[in-house]
């Protein structure tokens, strides 16, 4: 199983390194999104308190949606998703491979987004880098865990580009709220570790629930 996951992740990253399609589109879109919010919400060099974390997570959410759609569109074009499902690798391994690839791609986007948001919104995002990395990673995994199932499920639907956000955003709202609240707690001048821990624990719980449900449903969803 681990071998299959590794092969799929390596393949996805090789394809992305060759085409750079998803990295460029998600980055461009996420940066454009942050800039638009900055033009609107930063007045005379000052942003309203607590805006930065919201903008960060909104950009992650939009970029994530784009990355999920493009990743599976790529698998649809030559029907390679069918080839993955035909292989004797366990279906959960296919799911985990795709999920890991998407999380890695989003991590690249986030590595640019975090300092950009910190700079434009004067948010103290980098004051506690390890806590921030944990919050962003768990939030991204939760978002992508649900998104990977939906994107795979919708791969043959004609209106997949519309349906994906319609299905994905309502279900991942708890993850986004927890991500925003945890990041807000991180940027406060009087850092409250227990509050961050609370939201982080919630994010981990969401991740466990979403990944478990996704592993459980991926096989039946993909069979027909």
């Amino acid at each position, binding site marked *: 199983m681990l*071998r*299959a996951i590794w*092969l*799929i992740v390596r*393949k996805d990253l*090789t*394809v992305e390194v*060759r*085409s750079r399609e998803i990295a460029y589109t998600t980055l461009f879109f996420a940066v454009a999104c942050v800039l638009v919010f900055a033009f609107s919400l930063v007045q005379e060099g000052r942003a309203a308190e607590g805006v930065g974390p919201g903008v960060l997570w909104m950009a992650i959410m939009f970029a994530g949606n784009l990355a999920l759609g493009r990743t599976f569109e790529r698998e649809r*074009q*030559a*029907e*390679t998703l*069918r*080839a*993955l*499902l*035909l*292989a*004797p*690798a*366990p279906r959960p391994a296919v799911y985990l491979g795709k999920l890991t690839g998407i999380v890695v791609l989003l991590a690249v986007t986030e590595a640019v987004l975090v300092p950009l948001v910190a700079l434009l919104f004067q948010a103290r995002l980098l004051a506690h880098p390890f806590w921030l990395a944990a919050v962003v990673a768990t939030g991204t995994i939760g978002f992508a865990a649900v998104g990977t199932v939906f994107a795979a499920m919708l791969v043959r639907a004609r209106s997949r580009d519309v349906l994906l956000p319609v299905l994905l955003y309502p279900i991942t709202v708890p993850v986004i709220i927890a991500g925003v609240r945890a990041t807000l707690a991180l940027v406060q001048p009087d850092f409250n570790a227990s509050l961050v821990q609370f939201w982080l624990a919630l994010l981990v719980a969401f991740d466990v629930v979403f990944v478990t449900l996704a592993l459980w449903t991926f096989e039946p969803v993909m*069979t*027909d």
Partner: protein
Amino acid sequence: MNRLDFNEIAADEVSRHFGRRRAVSRVTFKAGRGTILGLLGPNGAGKSTLLAMLATLLRPSSGTIRYGQSDAAAGPSLRARIGVLGHDLFLYPELTARENLAFFAGLYGIADPAAQARDALDRAGLAARADDPVSSLSRGMRQRVALERALIHDPRLALLDEPFTGLDDASTGALVGRLHALRASGAIVILATHDLDLAEGLLDCAIFLRDGRAVETVARPDRLRTTYRAVIGR
């Protein structure tokens, strides 16, 4: 990796509906080892849907498909013995032919994927283009890579949808030779094709499909075109 083996595939009254549309209706057949079975019929006759069900990608709406003593529930161990060449080629255009073959060899649990990919490229006559991206290969070359991908794990059951598409004369001859070799090695080959001239002399059994129904089954078919016109034009 656990690899289930079987001597026969048997479809019994297999149907598949998409909403109210009946793509395949009550198709029954058996094919044993060392058999090449052809699915013949016009566009929309249900050939690809039937192949997808045999490949375990689609569940039949009714009826059963047995692989020896097992069915699709056997999962990975059964899929390890099935090779599929689809209408689409199931290849990543950004990856090279070698990378594609090595990737799928790895997924099928082959111990040395690189060596297997090298052998497959030699068989396909594409060793010189092994490190070119698949997107830069001609349609016929891609078809040859795709065929090697489908057969890279030495499947017991090979399901080939229009395998002759895009092949030149030499490649077609090589593919016919490959199919004979598969039959000799004890594989069960089921192929859907419109190329009746090529199918003639190759098939051990032909099933003529029309509107999802098997309207005629002919063992050791000859004069395929005449039979086809008579059966499909009825």
